[in-house]
């Protein structure tokens, strides 16, 4: 079915069952409601990481996803608070705006390769933070707070999405929303990577000169990919702002950008679902090490270095190994 093996379908089925039914059951039984927020964060960060992974796929190290997440968060917040838009329309708008910014920035910087591109993207997050501090519309250091919860949507009088403000359990609603968007993101990513566009990306990742000699318009594809990548960043950021009900210039920092990249490394650059796993492990790993107090950072970074040293293809390479699903 749809070109998937039955084993893959079972895997996807188990995964969907776990996140939509398993997790709520476990949380209901244990009473750890705070886990919803943690898992929602993981899902949203995984969306942004998916974008970073995609830029890796054309051979570019992207340490600037925080910039696009911040842009997305602000665009959504401003549209909802100042223009009175529904959150659900502001969400794709935030993604699109991030993508347009990515096209404008990408035109000059995507010519750079390797460490030069990485360095420029590293600066981007700081540039956006400073811009947010300076612009009147973003409200400077005070940021935008008291963002209303997403309102309901109904089409021809039939409610499609409930009003979040009228709900008892917004945590669960946000969890489901984040999971659905994450799944759509990764489904799109999987499709893209396994389509011809993905093959063209791989050809560029491996050799840009040869790719252009076989007629691939490499600068065009680089821009398209960077825009899609930033769209995911904007989407994740916008959701985050809505959950926190506030956006500040410091909502996404350089460290977040670095984490988005680490998520990809950790999960595995060769696997579409790598960044999802990477985000989960990295996020929980950091929290679990909290008990070590001042040694938290030391242990955390040592483990990361060891993983990158001994598992250069990421955590997924352990289980799937060679010839698994890409």
């Amino acid at each position, binding site marked *: 079915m749809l070109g998937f093996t039955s084993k893959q379908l079972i895997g996807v089925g188990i995964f969907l069952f776990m996140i939509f039914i398993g997790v709520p059951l476990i949380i209901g039984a244990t009473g750890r409601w705070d886990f919803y927020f943690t898992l929602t964060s993981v899902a949203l960060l995984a969306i942004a990481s998916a974008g970073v992974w995609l830029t890796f796929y054309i051979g570019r190290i992207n340490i600037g996803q925080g910039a696009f997440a911040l842009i997305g968060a602000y665009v959504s917040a401003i549209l909802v608070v100042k223009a009175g838009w529904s959150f659900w329309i502001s969400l794709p708008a935030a993604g699109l705006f991030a993508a347009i910014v990515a096209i404008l920035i990408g035109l000059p910087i995507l010519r750079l390769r390797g460490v030069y591109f990485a360095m420029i993207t590293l600066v981007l997050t700081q540039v956006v933070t400073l811009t947010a501090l300076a612009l009147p519309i973003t409200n400077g250091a005070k940021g935008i707070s008291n963002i209303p919860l997403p309102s309901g949507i109904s089409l021809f009088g039939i409610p499609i999405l409930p009003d979040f403000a009228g709900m008892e359990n917004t945590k669960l609603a946000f969890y489901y929303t984040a999971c659905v968007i994450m799944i759509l993101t990764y489904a*799109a990513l999987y499709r893209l990577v396994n389509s*011809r*566009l993905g*093959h063209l990306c791989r050809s560029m990742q*491996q050799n840009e000169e040869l790719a*252009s*000699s*076989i007629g691939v*318009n490499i*600068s065009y594809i680089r821009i398209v990919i960077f825009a899609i990548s930033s769209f995911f960043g904007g989407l994740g950021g916008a959701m985050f702002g809505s959950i926190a009900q506030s956006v500040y210039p410091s909502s996404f920092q350089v460290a977040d950008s670095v984490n988005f990249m680490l998520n990809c490394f950790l999960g595995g650059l060769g696997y579409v679902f790598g960044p999802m796993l990477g985000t989960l492990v990295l996020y929980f790993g950091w929290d679990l090490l909290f008990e070590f107090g001042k040694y938290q950072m030391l242990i955390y970074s040592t483990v990361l270095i060891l993983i990158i040293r001994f598992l250069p293809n990421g955590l997924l390479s352990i289980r799937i190994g060679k010839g698994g699903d890409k």
Partner: protein
Amino acid sequence: MSPLLQVKNVTKKYGGLTANNAISFDVAENEILSVIGPNGAGKSTLFKMIASFTPTTSGEVIYQGERISNLKPHIVARKGVVRTFQETTIFKSMTVRESVVVAQHLRAKASLAGYFWGSKTAKDDVTAFEKYADELLEFLGMSEIAGEQASNLPQGSLRALGIAIGLATDPKVLLLDEPFAGMNHDETMNMVNLVRSVRDERGVTVMLVEHDMPAVMNISDRIVVLNFGEKIAEGTPSEIQNNEKVIEAYLGSVDDEIGM
């Protein structure tokens, strides 16, 4: 018959260094033309300019009556002038078949969005690409290694893979960069036959840069000789072998050169 490709007064300067100085020659349809010369004579630079990988300082390259110099390389490839590289320039972590499938990009009819959504045109494209890839690999005698990862291939097969990738784009003119380098006599002879069949059976005009003199003399219809960025001779292999300037250029630098 008007020439298929014309190189007109092409000059390339890197700062104070002149890599190519006012080079002119014509390439006729269906011929095999070799560009030879000692190291540093400007052969590779000339090829790069023909395939528009680097702009000309002055002069122009005309293909089918149209100027193709100073365009983007993918546009020149689209017009049918395709360059292959030396063996290290391949898609390392693709199999031979994948490389040849991906290289048929120019023949694609579906849009990128069509590929994403899996439109009918896109599916037809993929089927056609895979079919043609198998045909092409069969033609090149590479069917047995179709499933091999490119990074695991021996040098000779890599060269053939480079040609396969170039041919997959369905070129009119194929520029081969040192197709015989590092090969023993038998491998070279196989490759000579292969290049000849590319011309004879596929109607592709072939230009090559090469150091292997016996192979060049064997395969070429005509030869252009460069030395220190200047064209010093042009003609059939026997004319070139008896050209005094050519003999001087090679013998005069016998120590650091290939020793012909």
